[in-house]
């Protein structure tokens, strides 16, 4: 049988993720464009102007408010959190003002926003909400102006700096009228302060349109219905999230016989920018030695007449780069090359796809087509042939550089570099550049730079538990001390669902099930809250499926383990054959009477058949199937702060505290079917345990980390306990012991990683004996989180130094840390995203961070 416990059963989680990767669609195919979400508007004949929050506004959406008021001398006080973009005042007769604001929606927004005025003879305004906007720098460019008395009012033209910007315009004048939006634009709202038509009052219009390419917007003219008057207009461009951008290029040529080609570092190149160098040289037999630190992407040689070569390299700019880079050749009858620098590129694996080819003698030379798999890639092409020529870049692409080895002539070498953003994944198609003169054979190359996948998402309080993954919906799910479950798209951190509010902090990783495996038929997550309830939430909609009927006042600290009935339909729990949720209680007022519950995880009633600790009744969704209660006649049970684990033999393993001693159990083994203690050894007095139990690779042992800092291996077959007492370090074992299910250290057993207060430990267990591999204290001696690994010999732990540490699993050496500038707080327990080679981790600053691995 197979169960899912996202905290304790790493293997099963990984299995499901792999299954997801194999069965379901790629997870990065989300549309990237800015989109209009909704608008709301209001008018007021006098006094405060209150506008509702547009329906569907979620965290990280950007709201644009356009507030028109008369007279122009009124002071305008915006609601908290709104930033003025520009206020435009028209002091002419029937004077009025237009003030435009923006706000990035937070985790918890009110239902409406109120603008107050020192005086008002009429106000009218609206809010337009957009998704997919860069939340750090939402506005690319903006401008406003007065307009003369007329029914038509034009905005200024602005020149956008980025492609696919959302143009948002605002119009307001001192008459109550309706508006017709500018040609080609969509009206977001149209509102007046008093009934229309009226020469008095104020009316305001908001409109929007997506502009595909960077450049001038042109003036945008809206038309009022009646009572020509003076007005104010405004235009702004919302920029998409920061993706890859061209920074600058530099190039150089060297004549025949010159064996070094030196190219300046492009101006503005900064650390972590990615440089692409395209080096053309003749003849094709020349050896090319790149500067230090450059990695060859591909060299393409054309051995035909006037033979030449094109070699393409990349380099991730470091903290300290030289002023130029020199390529050397053992022979050269001409060389020409350039460097193009890009920002926002994934630095660990910058190149997502690449290919090169020879081309026949011609003035036009085409690259191969490559297929990208992620959104917002930067396509970079290179062309070089054995003629000194100038080049015209491919249609739709921008030329980064165009350089020849010398004067334009039939001899020499010339090279072209160009680029374009490809918004959606797919084939690039061949990209054809054209030389100016002297057709010749050539070499071409194309590559796709992957966009940086690092993002962060803000909650309103500390969030240190490991986030959960829902690869079926491309979501990251994380609880927070702000009492809410947050769901964000793994591609860019945009809010995917409205934060789901519970009555208490959520400090355990949610358990996630896809519809295909859930008896509910829903993409569903089970969340435990300190308010004492388990919540089943549809991750596609964010809606509650059920709330548990118990335990209520007994808080829940640990996570839920979910029995996936689809994997073992013949095994019944209390006679039922639907998904079951297991939780242990955290009633700090008792050291003896805590409980373990089996809850109906299904979204419909089930009927239990009794027996053991089972109920015998109809059980509603979230209701109790069975209860195991600590205390007479059972052993006392202290609080459980961990997530249960169900083994391959259908036993539930639970850890708990033990009233500070060893006189009562802290490890429990129960029958999943009816909640009774297992036969044979079913409890172990190991002292307080907060860490979750973890299965070994073959299921023959269960590892338990105690609060005293010892690691226990319980042999499932007979209950024998093997103990490892670390020679150094202090404090409890964090989170859960973490077995490495690849042989990182060597044969003869499995390797288990665990962390204590400031130490990371690696030990080996061969079935009967522990042996220490290494123990490390990390640079700066930060307090550490629980560890995870990436299956490639890297461990990751969060630290009180505000960083995540990457550690060599073989040696324990601290390899790297991120982010470059530490957060102001402590990093929590990380989750490794196998699907995307990324790490998700929360912090005491309330943010959920994502980093690409390895660092």
């Amino acid at each position, binding site marked *: 049988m197979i169960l899912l416990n996202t905290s304790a059963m790493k293997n099963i989680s990984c299995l499901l993720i792999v299954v997801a990767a194999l069965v379901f669609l790629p997870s990065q195919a989300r549309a990237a464009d800015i989109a209009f979400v909704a608008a709301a508007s209001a008018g007021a004949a006098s006094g405060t102007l209150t506008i509702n929050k547009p329906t569907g506004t979620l965290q990280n959406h950007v709201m644009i408010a356009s507030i028109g008021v008369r007279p122009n001398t009124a002071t305008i006080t915006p609601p908290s959190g709104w930033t003025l973009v520009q206020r435009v005042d028209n002091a002419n007769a029937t004077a009025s003002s237009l003030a435009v604001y923006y706000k990035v929606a937070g985790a*918890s927004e*009110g*239902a409406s926003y109120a603008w107050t005025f020192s005086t008002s003879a009429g106000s009218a305004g609206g809010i337009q909400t957009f998704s997919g906007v860069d939340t750090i720098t939402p506005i690319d460019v903006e401008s406003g102006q007065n307009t003369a008395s007329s029914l038509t009012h034009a905005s200024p033209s602005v020149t956008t700096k980025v492609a696919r910007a959302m143009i948002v315009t605002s119009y307001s004048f001192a008459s109550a009228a309706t508006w017709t939006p500018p040609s080609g634009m969509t009206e977001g709202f149209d509102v007046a302060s008093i009934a229309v038509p009226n020469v008095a009052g104020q009316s305001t219009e908001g409109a929007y349109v997506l502009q595909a390419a960077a450049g001038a917007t042109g003036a945008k003219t809206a038309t009022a219905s009646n009572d020509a008057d003076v007005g104010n207009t405004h235009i702004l461009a919302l920029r998409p999230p920061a993706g890859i951008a061209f920074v600058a290029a530099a190039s150089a040529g060297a004549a025949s016989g010159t064996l070094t080609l030196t190219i300046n570092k492009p101006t503005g190149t900064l650390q972590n920018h990615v440089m692409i160098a395209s080096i053309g040289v003749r003849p094709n037999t020349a050896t090319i030695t790149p500067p230090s630190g450059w990695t060859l992407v591909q060299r393409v040689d054309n051995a035909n007449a006037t033979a030449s070569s094109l070699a393409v390299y990349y380099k991730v700019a470091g903290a300290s780069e030289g002023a130029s880079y020199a390529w050397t050749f053992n022979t050269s009858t001409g060389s020409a090359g350039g460097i193009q620098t890009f920002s926002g590129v994934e630095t660990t694996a910058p190149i997502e796809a690449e290919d090169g080819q020879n081309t026949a003698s011609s003035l036009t030379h085409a690259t191969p087509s490559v297929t990208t798999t992620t959104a917002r890639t930067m396509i970079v092409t290179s062309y070089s042939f054995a003629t000194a020529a100038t080049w015209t870049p491919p249609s739709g692409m921008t030329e980064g550089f165009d350089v020849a080895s010398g004067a334009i002539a039939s001899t020499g070498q010339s090279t072209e570099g160009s680029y374009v953003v490809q918004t959606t994944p797919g084939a690039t198609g061949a990209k054809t550049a054209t030389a100016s003169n002297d057709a010749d054979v050539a070499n071409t190359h194309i590559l796709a730079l992957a966009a940086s996948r690092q993002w962060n998402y803000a909650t*309103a*309080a*500390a969030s*240190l*538990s490991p986030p959960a993954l829902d690869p079926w919906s491309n979501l990251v799910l994380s609880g927070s*001390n*702000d009492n809410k479950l947050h769901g964000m798209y793994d591609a860019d951190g945009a809010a995917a669902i409205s934060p789901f*509010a519970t*009555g208490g*902090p959520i*400090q355990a990783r949610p358990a996630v099930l896809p519809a295909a495996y859930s008896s509910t038929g829903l993409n569903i997550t089970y969340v435990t809250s*300190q308010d004492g309830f388990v919540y089943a939430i549809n991750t596609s909609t964010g809606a509650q499926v059920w709330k548990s009927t118990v335990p209520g006042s007994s*808080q829940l*600290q*640990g996570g839920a383990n979910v029995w996936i009935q689809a994997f073992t339909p013949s095994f019944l729990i209390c006679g039922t054959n639907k998904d079951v949720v297991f939780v242990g209680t*955290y009633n*700090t*007022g008792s050291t003896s009477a805590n409980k373990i519950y089996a809850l109906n995880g299904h979204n419909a009633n089930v009927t239990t058949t009794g027996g053991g600790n089972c109920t015998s009744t109809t059980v509603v969704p979230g209701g109790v199937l069975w209860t195991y209660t600590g205390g007479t006649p059972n052993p006392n049970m202290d*609080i459980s*702060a*961990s997530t249960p684990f169900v083994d391959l033999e259908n036993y539930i393993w639970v850890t708990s*505290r033990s009233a500070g001693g060893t006189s009562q159990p802290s490890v429990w083994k129960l029958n999943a079917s009816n909640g009774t203690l297992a036969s044979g050894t079913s409890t172990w007095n190991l002292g307080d345990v*907060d860490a979750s139990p973890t299965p070994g690779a073959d299921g023959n042992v269960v590892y338990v980390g105690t*609060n*005293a*800092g010892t690691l226990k291996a319980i042999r499932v077959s007979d209950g024998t306990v093997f103990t490892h007492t670390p020679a150094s370090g*202090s*404090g*409890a074992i*964090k*989170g859960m012991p973490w077995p490495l299910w690849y042989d990182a250290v060597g044969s003869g057993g499995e390797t288990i990683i665990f962390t204590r*207060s400031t130490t990371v430990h690696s030990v080996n267990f061969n079935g009967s004996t522990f042996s220490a591999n290494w123990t490390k204290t990390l640079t700066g001696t930060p*307090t550490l*989180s*629980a560890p995870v690994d990436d299956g490639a010999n890297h461990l990751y732990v969060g630290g*009180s130094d505000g960083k995540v540490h990457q550690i060599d699993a073989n040696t324990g050496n601290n390899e790297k840390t991120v982010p470059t500038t530490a957060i*102001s*707080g*402590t990093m*929590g*327990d990380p989750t490794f995203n196998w699907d995307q080679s990324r790490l998700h981790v929360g*912090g*005491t*600053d*309330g943010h959920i961070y994502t980093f690409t691995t390895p660092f």
Partner: protein
Amino acid sequence: MVSCRGTVGRVAWILIVLCAVATFVGQTAVAESAPGTEQVREVYFGETEEDACQPGRKQFWLDELRSLHVCIVWAGLSGTYAAQLKFMSPDGNVYQAMTLAFVTAAAPASVATLEVEGRHHEVKRAGWGNKGGNLLVAALPVAGTYISQHNLAGEWKIEIALDGRTVDQESFVLRERKER
């Protein structure tokens, strides 16, 4: 029915569900005292609810603490209120904010729940303190939580607000043992 009688230095009976007797929901706070006259007279800390309202302790061993109980002694209140407690971890971040709806000990209960920022909070009756004070106790779970798992030791601060207006700030210290 559980009595809500008590004094500072004795058991504080607060946050007792059975004391809330009214039936309708969705009301805003019903405060009878003049705005600005409310004050926090004292804030105490304890390891248990029973000892929370005793003066003295402000430092606790992190590894011994199951929950930290915070006792707020209010003066000048009469009616139903929503208190907000914002716990700031030693790094200065907001660790957790909690809302406690309560009706003062001598006031008639008029509502069963208060709606604060879109969520209904059960109104519980404050305990009796001396000199007419009202006792409100909140519990911050510690054992096995982020606090103990991540050793969030150091000086913590609590911002106390009443109906959205910050009225006091206090601190306590969680100490970590260097060796076990």
